């Protein structure tokens, strides 16, 4: 079984920051905006190198989204960064009208998504943002799994014409994808081939899915693991092809089961290849304070939860 190695724990937000810095050097049209969270979003290097291309808007996210839409008029490619909660729910109508409906080339870059921002608690832990964003016509929704992938995705979305929601997080997590990977929007990445169950994971749950697959393999269950970094547009073919082979699926995400990756997968399968599915996700609840590990454990978002779900879904075949 292929071994994925953690090359040293890193936060996905640093992948964003470093990707943005590279873009600052390579693409003169890239500009950045932030709503008083420069340190949290790791944007300082970009700012130091391109002070004239950075806009500090203060604690005013609605204005940030509107300004981002306006900056595209004149050919700029704005990367607007703040916490996922403030980048989506707080400014939904601004994104809907000024960005999505107006089809503006804005990149909404959301850190601290999910429960793993930890101690700040539920006011800052959004578990509904994938749903909010994927429902907007024309919006591309990406949730990356580690530092390398986040950096690659950040660079890739600058080349994509149209609005993008890029979701990443706060904690330091395993960095295991290739440093030189080519990030293809909408293209699933198969991490393990398997025959008994398909595990489809996004974001921080991808590493957990790998751990789960190794253990399942030891117990005689062959798991296919797919990293879905792009939730919209969804790589439906990769999902259908895999489930045709395995006959069942577990979806894994640091998000409410309502509106998330799991529901997108369920829709895809129900239309062409119905199959038993289990959802590793939060169960229509808010988060709370705690360490990321404690919260992943309590809300059933780790390898143990995936193993349990896989065994259950295999029995349902």
């Amino acid at each position, binding site marked *: 079984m292929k071994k994925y190695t953690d090359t040293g724990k890193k936060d996905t937000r640093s992948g964003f920051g470093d990707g943005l810095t590279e873009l600052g050097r390579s693409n003169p049209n890239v*500009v950045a905006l932030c709503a008083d969270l420069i340190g949290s979003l790791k944007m300082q290097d970009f700012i130091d190198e391109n002070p*004239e*291309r950075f*806009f500090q*808007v*203060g604690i*005013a996210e*609605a*204005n*940030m*989204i*509107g*300004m*981002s*839409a*306006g*900056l*595209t*008029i*004149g*050919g*700029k490619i*704005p990367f607007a960064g703040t916490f996922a909660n403030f980048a989506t729910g707080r400014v939904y*109508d*601004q994104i*809907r*009208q*000024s960005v999505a*409906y*107006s*089809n*503006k080339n804005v990149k909404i870059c959301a850190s601290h998504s999910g429960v793993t921002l930890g101690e700040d608690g539920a006011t800052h832990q959004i578990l509904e943002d994938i749903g909010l964003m994927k429902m907007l016509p024309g919006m591309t929704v990406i949730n990356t799994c580690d530092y390398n992938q986040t950096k690659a995705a950040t660079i890739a979305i600058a080349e994509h014409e149209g609005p993008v929601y890029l979701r990443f997080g706060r904690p330091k997590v395993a960095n295991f994808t290739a440093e030189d990977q080519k990030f293809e929007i909408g293209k699933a990445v198969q991490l393990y081939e398997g025959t008994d169950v398909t595990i489809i994971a996004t974001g921080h749950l991808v590493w957990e899915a790998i751990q789960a697959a190794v253990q399942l393999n030891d117990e005689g269950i062959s798991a296919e693991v797919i990293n879905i970094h792009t939730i919209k547009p969804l790589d439906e073919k990769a999902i259908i092809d895999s489930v045709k082979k395995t006959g069942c699926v577990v979806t894994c995400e640091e998000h409410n089961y309502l509106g998330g990756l799991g529901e997108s997968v369920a829709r895809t399968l129900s239309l062409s290849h119905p199959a038993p599915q289990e959802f590793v996700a939060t169960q229509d609840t808010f988060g709370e304070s705690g360490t990321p590990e404690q919260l992943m454990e309590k809300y059933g978002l780790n390898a143990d939860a995936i193993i349990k779900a896989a065994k259950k879904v295999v029995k349902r075949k």
Partner: protein
Amino acid sequence: MANIEELKDFATQVRRDILRQVHKVNSGHPGGSLGCTEFFTALYKEIMDHNPEFNMDGENEDIFFLSNGHISPVFYSVLARTGYFPVEELSTFRLINSRLQGHPTTHEGLPGIRVASGSLGQGMSVALGAAQAKKLNGDSKLVYTLHGDGELQEGQNWEAIMYAAGNNVDNIISTIDLNGQQIDGSTETVLPLGNLRAKFEAFGWEVMEVEEGNDLQKVIDGLKHAKTLTGKGKPVVILLHTIMGHGVDFMMHTHAWHGKAPNDEQLETALSQNPETLGDY
């Protein structure tokens, strides 16, 4: 400069277009549209250096954002009659499969529109982004906006107003349509705006007033003066005192025609007060 009488004829024809658009589909917002007819006429016929061969980026031309998108009838009429799209297309206002949606949008590709508006309070932020892009591009042209007075009740405006002054965005001229009316009544009864001049000044804007916002010459003079105030480190706002429904006697001085179309008889009366000048579509 165009002859003022020609411009007044233009404005009268725009008023006819507004009334005929909303009458045909028995929906739309004539009151604010009529009140802003002189503003739009001045802006598109006299003030802005703009190109009807529409280009979204609008580089090296003045660009305009309508934040209170519900006054689309006046915007559409002026865009059509300054060459952005065929005047005949005004007959499709609010109809299915039309580019002339109830509120302006880029979605159907209507030339002249750079962002959707309708959900209020968003236009100034978008305009600030465009103004900053102009600065980055070394483009010395200006960005103009229009906002309803009731619209200033939306908090996002004040985020933008604070940003603009704090960051010396001095290539923007925002105009507030001070007609004192909104859907539920006068702004005074719905939610008083207080002293807008003092508010904008406190935020650090250069404030001017045009007391007679339906006097075309005064609107032109006001906008010309506003241009002289740009480039000096401060954003510029014009408090434009208008009369909602101006030009149609029974629509004036009331909020009743904010979002209501005239019936056949009322249309006839209204049109008789605004005789055809450039030719109806």
